[in-house]
């Protein structure tokens, strides 16, 4: 099931306004994504790891998330040392591993995980609804906010619809296999989900127009920025500034 398990909690991070988390999250992500220095990415990884620990995520869940994100890094670890080329090689049994390849794979692993930690600590601790409203206040187009919030709202409903259809298919003895029948069945299941969501969209739209909808969504709680929020923003921005400045000192 689709859930936001990291958004539940009462730590200092969970209580901060989405806006003061979005800005530093973007700053840290940019710094880590664009840096090619081991010092910056390594320090970044440690710093974001500390932030993540402070936000107290569920350890089991966290481990699973880290593994699933690192599937792509694993793919790079399997391909780059063998295919990257370069003059320096490292003999490994009967293979010659490219040192440059290993270097690039390590760098990417550090970046990917640093950004993941930052994301989990800063953004996953807010609900999508508050992130959406936060993004709108930071200048995201209103229509896009609307799309985001409504897709989010209907996501669960549509997923339930699909699961219901799938359950019905299974009750009628459907077993997925490598066959055209399987693909056709999945297509029809999905096609039916599409038809249902199309009609639901129509109904929801009519209901909203009837209630005077004019394109604005008003959030139920509109938090004011507090002193702690500003302090939090300043601290994290200072940290990211120092992180970005590392290459100039070393």
């Amino acid at each position: 099931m689709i859930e936001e398990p990291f958004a539940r909690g009462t730590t200092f991070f969970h209580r901060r306004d989405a806006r003061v988390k979005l800005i530093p999250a973007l700053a840290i992500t940019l710094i880590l994504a664009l840096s090619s220095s081991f010092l910056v990415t390594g320090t970044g990884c440690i710093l974001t790891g500390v932030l993540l620990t402070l936000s107290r995520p569920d350890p089991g869940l966290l481990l699973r998330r880290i593994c699933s994100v690192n599937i792509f890094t694993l793919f790079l670890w399997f391909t780059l040392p063998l295919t990257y080329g370069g003059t320096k090689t490292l003999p490994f049994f009967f293979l010659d591993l490219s040192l440059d390849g290993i270097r690039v794979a390590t760098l990417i692993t550090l970046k990917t995980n640093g950004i993941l930690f930052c994301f989990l600590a800063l953004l996953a601790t807010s609900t999508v609804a508050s992130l959406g409203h936060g993004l709108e206040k930071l200048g995201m187009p209103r229509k896009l906010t609307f799309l985001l919030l409504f897709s989010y709202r209907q996501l669960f409903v549509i997923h339930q619809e699909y699961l219901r259809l799938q359950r019905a298919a299974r009750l009628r003895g459907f077993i997925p296999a490598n066959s055209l029948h399987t693909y056709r069945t999945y297509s029809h299941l999905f096609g039916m989900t599409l038809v249902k969501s199309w009609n639901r969209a129509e109904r929801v739209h009519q209901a909203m127009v009837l209630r005077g909808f004019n394109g604005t969504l008003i959030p139920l709680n509109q938090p004011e920025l507090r002193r702690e929020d500003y302090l939090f923003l300043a601290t994290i921005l200072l940290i990211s500034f120092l992180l970005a400045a590392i290459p100039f000192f070393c």
Partner: protein
Amino acid sequence: MHISEGVLTAPVLIGGAVLTAVGTTVGLKKLDYDRIMTVSLLSATFFVASLIHVPVGPGSVHLLLGGLLGLLLGWGAFPAIVVALLLQAIFFQYGGIVVLGVNSLNIAGPAVLCGLSLSPLLKGSKKQRMTAGFLAGFCSMFLSALLMAGAIFLSDQGFLHAAVILLASHLPIMLIEGLITMFVVGFLARVQPEILSQDTRK
């Protein structure tokens, strides 16, 4: 189908972000409040499609169905895909914020292109409809994989072999996407043809 954060270099990231911003702006401009609900719901449905795993050989792949979304929404598919990918980034941490531009472009660009060029065929005979469905699924997936490999290669020439392996591994997925999109189009034509014929694509 996602490039994770940290792989691409600045020029590729910026290029992707700029093009995605342009595509999203065009898509939003063509979208009025009467259709926004439909696009929201289809965006959510597109997200759900990525949770459907179909068997291929010994393993399984998840659906993408960008081509189908392009056929149904035209330019509207662009913001819909951006939103779905943003939700995936928030829910599952697949992809990320900085790489969102490139990832969205990789999926939404081909989707809109295939959708706009093939949707006239949907009004034709059954055979033409099926062809449009298959081609939309197959070509959008092929172009997406090509763009993804291209983005990785442009970031670092040393990634050439990795990019080629990535592209080749997407071949069976292209076929599956083509077949499924074809069957879905056939299904919609029988069950609720106005979804295909409605003039919502601009």
